[in-house]
Structure formats: C-alpha cells, structure tokens
C-alpha cells in the first residue's frame, strides 16, 4: 500500500522536477564552470567539494598574485610562479621572502589541473587544494602565519565580498585557510595550455618542419614501428614524459646523482615522504609543456639549458640501483639532439603565456626580471 502510494507521488514529483529543469529561470542556482577544456585531453577531475566557478577562479587569481599574503608583503605565489616563464622563476632554487632559498626548483604550473595524483617534486601533497597552502606559511617561501593572513583578507572589503560570492559566506569569519586553498586550486585548474605547435599539428592545423618531425619521432621512439622512421634512434623520453601532458605523474630516479648505496642521496626526494630507502633519489616526472621557458631544469635546477638535459640523458646518467632502466646511454648524435631540441620547442604555447600575462596584469602583476 505504502509502496503504491509512494510510486504515485514519486511520479508526480519527478514530472514537477523535470518541468523545473526545463525552465531556465529555475536553473540559475548552479554555477557554471567557466574553464573550457579541449577535447584532446581527458577531462579534469574536479573535486566534489570544490567545483570551479567564475567567482572562485577570479578570487584564486587575485590571491595568487597578491604579495600581501606573505609575511612582509614582498612575495606572492607569482613571485616564483611567473606567467611569462610558464609559471616558473628562472632560478635554480626557489627564492622566498628576504631572499631565502628553498631546496628545490620551482615546478611549472602548465596543465597542473590534469595532475590528479600527488604534487611537489616529492609528491608530499595529495591535491591542489592542500598543496596551495604550503608556500603561504613555509618560512623559506612566503613565510606567513594564518592568523595574520586571515586578518589581512578579512580587513579587505573586496576580498570579503569575493569570498562571500565564491563560497556563499555570510560572515567574514567564515574565511578560512581551506577556502584560500580552494580558490587558489580553482585558479590553477584554469591554467590549460593546448595551443602549442605540437597541439596544432595533432589537430591538423599546422605541420612540423622536417627537423621537428625527426625530433618528434626520436622523442616518441617511432623507429619501433618501422616505416619512415626506422633508422632513427629511440630516446625513450615518452616512457615518463607521456603525452598529452608530457608527464606520467610518477616518481623515478633519472640518474642525476651517483648513489651505489641508496642512503647516499643528498636529497632523498620521494623517499623522504614514503620513508622507503628504495624511493630515495626519486622525483616526480615534470611536465614538458612550455619546457623551453622553464629553465633551469631538474629538482635542484642544476642544468641551465635543455642542451645540458639532453646530454645528461644521452650519457645514461649516474649509477644507483634504483635508476630507471629507461635512463641508459642513447647514442644520440649532435643532429639527433638538435632535432629533439626543436621538437621540445614546439611544446611552447605563446597564446597561453600571453593570455596569462594579460590576466595577471589585470590584477596588478608586473613583469620583473630576477637575477
């Protein structure tokens, strides 16, 4: 009896609900994601508790470029993640307030929203929301303290209004570190590059030069399939730098330090997070999108140029028992390396960079040259 009655009511209510959905005026409560994603990529995984909205993204951008969040008002996220350098800083090691140095190179943020595993070189952070909070209070980065940061935000009427709209707050005391992280994550998920020459070639909108094509074939080991590339060497790059984001998001020892005993690494990298000595010397594979703009290279910025990086891999790297087996002497010629280099330059997305600079300037960012 109850079931029959319930079914009747359910039918009527379902009809009512569908009627409401077909009414545009009734659908305005759902914020639309303003981030356009290209079909070439698997969709970004948005957390259920932090979908991107226009208000949240704008707030995140403003926070990202605001030096007021740092302890002495001199450093913003963008001081290290500069849009003109594909969100890196051009330095071997990150530099925070008062010139303090971090121990790691600044990773680029291009397409960072597609990274749904862990973040940082050592993978110590599980999400963009969580990761975004680290630099704010790291003494070698922005050096802030949450009570001071929250006071700063709550004292700014524009911030209070922006947080209220983005997260449906009714009082400024509801502004929390968690919401700061969410806004910053929303902004970072909008950093999508898909207009590089490489992308346009894949879409049939451009063509590689003969040299770029050779570099592409060497990068992706196309000699394995025979055909026109059969005489080219294989550089084994794409095992780790897998398309479309040119990172497999995993951790490897790429042979930059000799360590016959795994306890001998100066920086344990992933091992410092997992506690496993077998993971010492391993670091997350960085994306190569916009790589020509993100020098210097490696977790400690030891290689100044891409030529040095290619030479490192061509030599096969230093010995450690956990060195990736795909890092081995490659026997690349000078021409092969030149071809690879021009291919890597096709991963630069000027349209993305210029758009990010334009957006950044609208919130007060000024281009600067660091020495």
């Amino acid at each position: 009896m109850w079931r029959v009655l319930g079914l009747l009511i359910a039918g009527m209510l379902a009809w009512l609900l569908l009627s409401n959905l077909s009414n545009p005026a009734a659908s305005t409560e759902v914020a639309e994601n303003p981030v356009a994603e290209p079909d070439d990529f698997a969709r970004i995984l948005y957390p259920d508790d932090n979908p991107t909205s226009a208000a949240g993204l704008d707030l995140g951008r403003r926070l990202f470029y605001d030096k007021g969040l740092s302890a002495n008002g001199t450093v913003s996220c963008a001081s290290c993640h500069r849009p003109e350098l594909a969100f890196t800083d051009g330095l071997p090691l990150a530099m925070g307030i008062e010139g303090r140095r971090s121990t790691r190179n600044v990773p680029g943020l291009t397409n960072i929203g597609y990274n749904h595993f862990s973040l940082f070189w050592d993978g110590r952070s599980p999400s963009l929301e969580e990761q975004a909070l680290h630099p704010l209070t790291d003494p070698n980065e922005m050096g802030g303290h949450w009570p001071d940061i929250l006071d700063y935000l709550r004292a700014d009427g524009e911030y209070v209004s922006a947080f209220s709209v983005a997260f449906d707050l009714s009082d400024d005391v509801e502004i929390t570190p968690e919401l700061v992280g969410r806004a910053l994550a929303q902004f970072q998920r909008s950093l999508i590059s898909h207009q590089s020459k490489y992308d346009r070639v894949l879409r049939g909108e451009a063509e590689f030069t003969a040299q770029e094509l050779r570099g592409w074939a060497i990068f992706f080991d196309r000699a394995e399939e025979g055909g026109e590339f059969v005489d080219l060497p294989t550089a084994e790059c794409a095992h780790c730098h897998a398309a479309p984001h040119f990172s497999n998001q995993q951790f490897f020892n790429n042979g930059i330090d000799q360590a016959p005993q795994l306890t001998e690494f100066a920086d344990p990298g992933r091992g410092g997070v997992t506690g496993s000595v077998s993971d010492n010397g391993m670091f997350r594979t960085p994306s190569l999108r916009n790589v020509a703009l993100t020098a210097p290279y490696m977790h400690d910025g030891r290689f100044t140029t891409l030529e040095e990086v290619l030479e490192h891999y061509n030599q096969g790297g230093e010995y450690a028992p956990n060195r990736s087996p795909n890092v081995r002497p490659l026997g690349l010629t000078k021409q092969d390396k030149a071809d690879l280099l021009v291919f890597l330059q096709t991963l630069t997305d000027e349209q993305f960079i210029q758009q990010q600079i334009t957006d950044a300037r609208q919130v007060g960012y000024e281009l600067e040259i660091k020495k």
Partner: protein
Amino acid sequence: MPRILTLFLLSFTVLFLGCPNDDDDSVAGEATVEVNFRALFGGEDLQLFSERYDYEANDTRLLITLFQFYVSDLQLVPTDGGEPITLTEIELVRWNESSDPATLSFSYPDIPEGSYTVRFGLGVKRELNDKNPNEFAADFVLNENEFWNEMARYVFTKIEGNAELEGDDLFDTPLSYHIGKNDFYVTLDYPNATIDVSAELNNDIDFTVDVERMMVANATTFADFTNEDTRIVHNPNSPVSAQLWANLQQAILLIR
C-alpha cells in the same frame, strides 16, 4: 525554491519506498568476490627495488622495479551454462612502488551466489584498445600513461629492472620490456576449477604470476641480458616480445 521543495518531497517519497527493505544492506543471494593477483619471483613474493634475485644465467642477479599487465573482461562463467558475469571490463594489475604488497586485490560486490569458472582476457581487448585515452575519465585505468601512440596503442605488459652481470654488486644493466598489440590479446580460461560464490563463504579467487617464469621459458630458453637488443625491447614485433608474452600466459596460475 520550487525545485528545492520538489527535491525535498521526492526524497521523502523515496524514503517511503525504501522503508520495506531498508534493513537490508545487501541483497539476499549476492556476495562480494575478491580477485587476488600475487606476484612472485621464483616462487617467492615479489619485492620491488629491494630484493636481489638470482637469474637463470650464471652469476646474473636481478632487481625488479616494475611489473604490470592489463586484464580485460574478467568474467565468472556459470557452470550451469548461464550468461557470464563480467566483474570488470578492464583492470591494470601493477606493481611499481617499493611499498606495493605482493598481492594486489580487486573487489567486486553484488555477485549472485552460484558455481562458476573464471576467465579473462590478457591485455587490452580490441574494443578498448581502439579508443584513445582522452575518451576515458582521467582516473580510468587506460589513462595511466600506458598509451604508446595512435599506431601501437596500449602497452599490455611491462617488466623493468636492473641486472648485475659482472658479479660486482652493481645493478647497472637496464632491462625494459614493453609488450602488446592486438594480435597478442588472448583469453585465459580455467574451466576445470569451480568457484562457489556464497554469502557464507570467503569468495577469494587467487592467481599467482611469477615474473621469473615470464622471463624463463625453460633452462635453455630465457631472456638474454647480455645484448642490448634483447634486454631493451619496446617493439611488439620483436621475437623477444612474442616469447615473453607466451611465457606470461604460462606464468599466471589459478590457485583457487
């Protein structure tokens, strides 16, 4: 506001509908099946990165850093001839971190009780192999960066490691086998082992897969690490690929 009210009423109604059965968390006559893959080397639990294994050739030792393979259409086939139950369309069975346990378990709920045999496709079935990663969710198993390219498609299986060849305690000879193509896809069927699924029983289906067996067919036929052409093999058309693929099929055993 009208929509909120409607949703509230709808929820209330669903509550009514659910009342007669709301003390049942699981449907009678169904159970959860656990499929376990236990990786071995020479019969012992595989330990990535840390364990040094003796290999077939004299004085050679191995350090394994990666072992993985795809499984498609893992199915339970009713012994009474009914329709097969597909537990999963595709699964990546992968050991790639030092902390990975030797046994990887995959859980499948709501399986009807009954007697079955088990079968699965080794590799990525053609229907999925024809699709590009961007056609799947970013966290789907075919978006684990195992896509070679638009011609070669997904890598069905990988073994990576480092070998010590000179007895100097230096594991400085890299090994890397990446194998797979449509022609390799094969169904492994275990018709002689009956699996009784019951809500009252432990419904584990246990496989072992021995990495040494994948590299060693017999005492005279085994992967040769002295030559780079046979220890770095990423070409699915290489005879080494075919040999290791055939070995892998023999290396997977149904224990229960």
